[in-house]
């Protein structure tokens, strides 16, 4: 990005960047521009994700979902946002008003800060930080500060419960997250997001997830603990609506409330992108060597598309999980972390180390294992999809027999 900015600067002002006294100013300007783009991307994604999630949930529950605002209800999220804008910004009388007002900004900063280091395609990243994923881990921990302060300052017992649960949860789950990321860091030999992707390949057997059984386990640990860090079902304890009314954001209203769900949906992208870039090969195009990508705009676009498809697939799975699973209890939540995830992650760490020494990446056996594992993994996935389809078809037939009307309708055509 810096090189790109330098080039742009040179082209516009026809001055060598390094000589210019305005260089710093130029950088500041670029910084604002990039943050503007990222922020809008995140906000837009959060909004559309909220709509998509509601439509998917409706599909799973034999409902229609939002369908009135705009064609197929696609502008529902705008309407909701607008409604939130117009709501009164209530601050409880006994709340700690300063912290209450401040708390959403922490959540906001913590989550949107993560977008800085997330890649979107070949060479497209706001800042290819040397400490990339380490930075993402660190900056998202600001979210918990926002949640705790929001919950505490509301001066409501429900909110306090939510805040305490959130603190316990995020502190616990940062450890398996970090440990399972260590596998990838070890394999790639770098913390930078781009070089982690670059050290993988386009084909499934070149992804880190199929490197060894240990990384496969690490992948699942990372996925589960990302869910927990993002407060998604089955770990949505901090805002468990049937237990804590709405948890830490019970007392919030209007725009300040909006920030919490928005951050949650933006977090979907962070989870998806993190999983994709660390374990699923990122934007790598199958069969294309890295060096050839910069020469062609088409390959550039394909890399972006691939990254988006993978990320959205993960997001889709996360959404489906949310509408399928019940919530775990708070003691079970910590139990899962400390008795299963952390020890298994440690074992995976050591196992991967040994595996790396025993079967190097390029060795015949290593490649064979990777191909075998990816084949098995792919088959399992296809089997699951076929089974789901089979169940669905039976259900559909029964429904048609009972009601005489089709159970299925295309998403763009409502009954």
């Amino acid at each position, binding site marked *: 990005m810096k090189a790109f900015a330098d080039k742009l600067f040179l082209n516009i002002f026809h001055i060598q960047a390094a000589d210019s006294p305005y260089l710093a100013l130029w950088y500041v300007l670029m910084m604002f521009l990039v943050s503007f783009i990222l922020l809008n991307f995140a906000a837009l994604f959060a909004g559309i994700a909220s709509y998509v999630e509601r439509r998917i*949930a409706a599909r*799973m*529950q*034999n*409902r229609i979902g939002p369908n009135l605002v705009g064609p197929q209800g696609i502008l529902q999220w705008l309407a909701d946002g607008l409604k939130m804008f117009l709501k009164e910004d209530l601050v409880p009388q006994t709340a700690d008003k300063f912290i209450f007002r401040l708390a959403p900004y922490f959540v906001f900063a913590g989550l949107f800060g993560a977008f800085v280091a997330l890649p979107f395609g070949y060479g497209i990243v706001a800042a290819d930080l040397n400490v990339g994923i380490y930075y993402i881990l660190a900056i998202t921990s600001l979210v918990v500060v926002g949640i705790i302060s929001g919950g505490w300052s509301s001066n409501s*017992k429900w909110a306090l*419960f939510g805040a*305490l*649960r959130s603190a316990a949860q995020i502190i616990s789950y940062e450890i398996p997250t970090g440990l399972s990321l260590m596998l990838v860091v070890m394999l790639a030999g770098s913390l930078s997001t781009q070089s982690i992707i670059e050290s993988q390949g386009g084909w499934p057997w070149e992804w880190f997830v199929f490197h060894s059984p240990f990384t496969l386990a690490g992948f699942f640990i990372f996925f589960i603990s990302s869910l927990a860090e993002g407060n998604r*079902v*089955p770990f*949505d304890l901090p805002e*468990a*609506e*049937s*237990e804590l*009314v709405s948890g830490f954001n019970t007392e919030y209203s209007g725009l300040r409330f909006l920030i919490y769900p928005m951050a949650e949906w933006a977090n979907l992208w962070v989870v998806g992108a993190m999983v994709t870039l660390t374990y699923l090969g990122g934007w790598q195009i199958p069969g294309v060597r890295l060096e050839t990508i910069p020469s062609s705009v088409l390959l550039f676009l394909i890399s972006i598309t691939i990254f988006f498809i993978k990320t959205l697939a993960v997001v889709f799975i996360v959404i489906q999980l949310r*509408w*399928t*699973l*019940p*919530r*775990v*209890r*708070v*003691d*079970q939540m910590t139990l899962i972390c400390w008795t299963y995830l952390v020890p298994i992650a440690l074992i995976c760490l050591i196992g991967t180390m040994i595996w790396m020494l025993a079967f190097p990446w390029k060795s015949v056996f290593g490649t064979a294992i990777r191909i075998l594992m990816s084949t098995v993994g792919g088959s399992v996935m296809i089997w699951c999809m076929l089974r789901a389809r089979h*169940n669905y078809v*039976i*259900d559909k037939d*029964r*429904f048609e*027999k*009972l009601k005489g009307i089709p159970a299925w309708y295309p998403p763009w055509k409502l009954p």
Partner: protein
Amino acid sequence: MKNPAKVNEAIRHLKPQAAPFEEEMSLNFGPQHPSTHGVLNFLVVTDGEVMHQALPNIGYLHRGIEKLAEMTPYSGFMPYTDRVDYLAAMFANQVFAMAVESLAEIEVPKRAEYLRVIVCELNRIASHFIATGALALDLGAVTPFVQWLREREFINDIMEALCGARLTYNYMRIGGVSVDMPGDLPDKILRFLDHFEPIIDEYNRLISNNEIFVKRLADVAVISPIDAVNFGLVGPNLRASGIGIDLRKTLGYSVYPDFDFEVPLGKGFRGALGDAYDRYMVRILEMTQSCRIIRQALEKIPGGEYRANVKKKLKVEENEVYSRVESARGEMGVYLISDGTDRPYRLKIKTGSFTAMSIVEKASQGLMVADLIALIGSLDVVAPEVDR
């Protein structure tokens, strides 16, 4: 409420009995809370997530139905009974009709009895939909609840075709039922059963065997058989504790002796006997049995009258009766005293939720806050039935 001192005086008894410890925190759970199933209030004394006590505070939905009964003619009281338990209105209909018929010595035609059984069992299934689905909803799984709502919609359609109402049916009359079944209804019901019976398996795959769901319910809020008897639990809650009392079998009222069905008992499916999962599972199993009963009833249903000839202004000699049915929430009883006029002298409705609610105080000790929700959900408490 202008006078805060008066309000404080009014809620004084809700404060926990003993002085709270330093670490204790009291929490008002309800009356408006997503998972209280109506308007209820629990005063929860907790130490962090672990509860020391949950004191139910009921009465928010008390409408004085028993007092209303004393001012209403027998035939006019039927719509009120719908409101006792709005999720299973047929049973209250039936038990009241049975009580009056018993007092006035009215012979109910066979066809009416069969119709009553069919609608009651359909209603039982519909009620268990809400019970099991809402339990899943309380534990955070939304989809199972909506899945059951879809199935319940079919039952509502059937009821609508039968009596025009979808929730408060007011279907039964003293001496029979209000209307006969339309000709195509048996076919409709059978088609629904064909559709529905495999759905139970699907539902089990979706939620009953879900590991998180099982972990949340198994070994939680165990009610021992002794406690269950002592606290007067009835219906599925009692049977989940392993005590096989089902008034359909024990009393054999109406035409239930004609049918071949089983009474599912809790046996510690995934944990201890009488835990929340047993209470859940007993309800799921009962649905299958209800399907069996409906199928047999549709086969055996005789022709003839659907309502006995009963005077509009019914006067009943001085007498008293206590009639009971097995409602979806267990034994529902009506104690009816007549005094020769056209109105009851005294009517007392005994409901299953009332006694189920009284066990919360004991069963909730030492649970976690999240388990309280599982406990209330698994007891299948309906607030208007508690308060009447």
